[in-house]
């Protein structure tokens, strides 16, 4: 649905109002949105910078705090938007006998890869998850029926399901961001609500070592474009052809 169609629909509202007609217009945040070049948001995570602080969880905490991500005690109910895991688990297929020793216990930050070719979007039976024009994989929590097909389809385990009502498990509610109800799938949204306001994603902002770089791949002058042009990077499971938008730098 493009914006023109949308205006038409909202126009119907006014007709229904019969005697109290009024114009209603919905505007996009970017006024010049259509003219501006499409964004391709991406993130680069630097191994070397990330390991500098032992046990640092600033990015995770900040993200989970801002997005009201609950902390379940039971592992099977766990919901995570961004988390860390061992190198062998994350890059299992890029492990050899030497890396096993060298990179042992190296924590790798994981989050939704916002794939260019997302398997989760394809399988959704209600279009509750989709790729928006900036390449971010979105979830409409109002539409999700909780079939969890997308979870099965995601090769990165990036999606979590609300097995129970999350509210009691949220330590401190951030009232500017909605919580979720039980029964829907959720995941990292690349801080879509922040970047439309011109802010950086919560995790990027929180990192004391500036290990995370976020920016527009379509802009050759952006930090991230420059970084990826100059440094060696890998993606998770590239052989699956999903083309992740999260890059790992050496």
């Amino acid at each position, binding site marked *: 649905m493009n914006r023109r169609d949308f205006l038409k629909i*909202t126009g119907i*509202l006014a007709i229904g109002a019969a005697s109290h007609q*009024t114009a*209603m217009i*919905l505007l996009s945040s970017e006024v010049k949105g259509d003219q501006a070049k499409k964004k391709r948001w991406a993130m680069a995570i630097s191994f070397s910078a990330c390991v500098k602080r032992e046990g640092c969880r600033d990015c995770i905490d900040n993200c989970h705090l801002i997005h009201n991500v609950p902390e379940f005690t039971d592992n099977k109910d766990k919901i995570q938007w961004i988390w860390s895991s061992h190198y062998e688990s994350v890059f299992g297929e890029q492990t050899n006998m030497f890396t096993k020793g060298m990179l042992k216990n190296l924590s790798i930050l994981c989050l939704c890869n916002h794939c260019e070719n997302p398997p989760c979007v394809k399988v959704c039976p209600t279009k509750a998850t989709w790729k928006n024009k900036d390449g971010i994989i979105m979830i409409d929590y109002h539409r999700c029926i909780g079939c969890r097909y997308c979870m099965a389809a995601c090769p990165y385990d990036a999606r979590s399901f609300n097995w129970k009502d999350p509210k009691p498990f949220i330590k401190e509610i951030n*009232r500017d961001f909605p919580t979720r109800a039980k029964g829907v799938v959720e995941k990292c949204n690349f801080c879509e609500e922040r970047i439309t306001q011109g802010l950086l994603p919560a995790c990027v902002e929180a990192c004391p070592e500036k290990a995370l770089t976020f920016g527009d791949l379509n802009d050759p002058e952006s930090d991230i474009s420059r970084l990826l042009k100059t440094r060696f990077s890998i993606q998770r499971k590239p052989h699956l052809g999903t083309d992740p938008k999260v890059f790992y730098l050496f």
Partner: protein
Amino acid sequence: MKKIILGLILFLLVAFLPLGYNIYTGKKAYIPVIKAPEDKKECVENVFIMRKRHNIVLEKWRDASVRHGIKKYVSLNGTYKISLTGTCLGCHSDKTQFCDRCHDYAGVKPRCWDCHNIPDKVAEK
């Protein structure tokens, strides 16, 4: 014959039960008073529309914001940020005095509050 008349009376009693019920609860003349924000004159739309159609406006807001990335709403009354917690409850800061009163009266239980938060200042009360 007696049974039928009895049944008829019973039926009429049941049919007129609502009358008694409201007298019993003492709400026979109750009409909820909705506390409009004192500092604001107009809502995002004309008040007549808002009274009848705020739910539909909100639904459109929801779809616009979530699915189409549209974050601003322009009406004759001005331009507004699309946000239930931020914009609506920003003015109608007291949900119990505003939303709930009428929703209870009309027997409507919207699910918005399952996820969307009541702003800090109300929740703190």
